[in-house]
C-alpha cells in the first residue's frame, strides 16, 4: 500500500496555534508542499510579519525572518537584493499588506522586485481579536464595526490585488480561495506558479487567498467555507487578475 498523501518535509510535525478551521494551516501546508515539489527548501527565505501567522517560522522548516507589522516587503526586498540566488517570499495578512503596509506593498510591486507574495485575505484582523480589516465586506460585523461595515464612515473593501495589477512592475496576480477542495487544488497551482516565476526571474508575483476565519466570522468551519464561496468570492472574484 502506497502513501498517497503525507506530511510535507517543509512543514514541521507540530500542532499550530491556529483556531479550528483556520485557513492559515491550510495555506502553510500548500506552500510547504510546493516548496518540497520544487526542491527549493534549502534556498527559501520566508518573511512572516506581525499577524496571526507571525510565528509561521515555528511551522515551516526553512529559513524565516520576522518583520514588523506592514514591513514584510521592505524586509523581503532587501533579502532578495542581497541574496538573489535565494527564493524569497512574504506571507502577509490583509491588515499587514493592505492597511499598515500599503506603502511597502505598492512600492515593492512597483519596483518589480523578483519575489513572491502570499496574501491571506480573511476580511478581518485575527490576531488582535476580530477588528475591521481593509478587506472587511460591507455590512460585515467585526469588533470595530459592531453594526456592520458602513461605506459612508468606513469605506469599501479594498481590492488591492486589482490596484497592484495596474503597475507595470507586477507580472502575476491571481486570487484563489481556500473555500472548497477544488479551489484548494487551484490555489496550490497558483502558489507554484508564483514561486516558479521567481525561480525563472519573471518578477513580482502575488497570490491572494480568500481564507476562512471561523472564530471572528462567528461561523462554523464548514459555514465559513460556504461564506467564502457564496459571499466573499462575490466581492473578491476569483481568477487570474494579471
Amino acid at each position, binding site marked *: *500500500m502506497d502513501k498517497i498523501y503525507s506530511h510535507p518535509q517543509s512543514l514541521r510535525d507540530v500542532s499550530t496555534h491556529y483556531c479550528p478551521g483556520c485557513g492559515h494551516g491550510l495555506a502553510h501546508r500548500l506552500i510547504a508542499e510546493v516548496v518540497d515539489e520544487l526542491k527549493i527548501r534549502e534556498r527559501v527565505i520566508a518573511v512572516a510579519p506581525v499577524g496571526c501567522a507571525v510565528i509561521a517560522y515555528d511551522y515551516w522548516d526553512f529559513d524565516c525572518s520576522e518583520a514588523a507589522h506592514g514591513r514584510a516587503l521592505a524586509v523581503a526586498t532587501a533579502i532578495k537584493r542581497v541574496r538573489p540566488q535565494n527564493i524569497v517570499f512574504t506571507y502577509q495578512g490583509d491588515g499587514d499588506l493592505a492597511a499598515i503596509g500599503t506603502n511597502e506593498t505598492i512600492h515593492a510591486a512597483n519596483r518589480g522586485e523578483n519575489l513572491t507574495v502570499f496574501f491571506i485575505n480573511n476580511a478581518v484582523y485575527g490576531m488582535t481579536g476580530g477588528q475591521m480589516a481593509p478587506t472587511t465586506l460591507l455590512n460585515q460585523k467585526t469588533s470595530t464595526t459592531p453594526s456592520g461595515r458602513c461605506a459612508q464612515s468606513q469605506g469599501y473593501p479594498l481590492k488591492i490585488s486589482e490596484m497592484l495589477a495596474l503597475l507595470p512592475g507586477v507580472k502575476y496576480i491571481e486570487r484563489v480561495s481556500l473555500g472548497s477542495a477544488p479551489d484548494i487544488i487551484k490555489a496550490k497551482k497558483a502558489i507554484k506558479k508564483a514561486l516558479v516565476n521567481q525561480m525563472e526571474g519573471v518578477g513580482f508575483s502575488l497570490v491572494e487567498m480568500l481564507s476562512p476565519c471561523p472564530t471572528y466570522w462567528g461561523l*462554523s468551519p464548514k459555514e465559513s467555507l460556504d461564506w467564502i464561496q457564496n459571499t466573499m468570492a462575490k466581492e473578491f472574484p476569483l481568477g487570474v487578475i494579471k
Partner: protein
Amino acid sequence: MPKITIDKDKCKGCLLCVSVCPQGAIVINEELNLRGIKPVKFKSEGKCVGCALCALICPDCCIEVYK
C-alpha cells in the same frame, strides 16, 4: 484497500474532513484527545476510496492517505 490515518491529538475537531468525505468514512470520535476536544476518527476501511479530499482540506495536516 484504501485507508487514512488521523493524528488524533493534532486534530482540532473542525470537521471539514467530515464535510468533504464522499463516503461518510470519517466520524466524530467521542473520546477526547489531549487537547480536550473530540477529534475525528476513520470509520471503516471498506468505505474509503482513497480520494484524499479529507487530507486536502485538513487545515492541521492530521491526515495521511494510503491506497
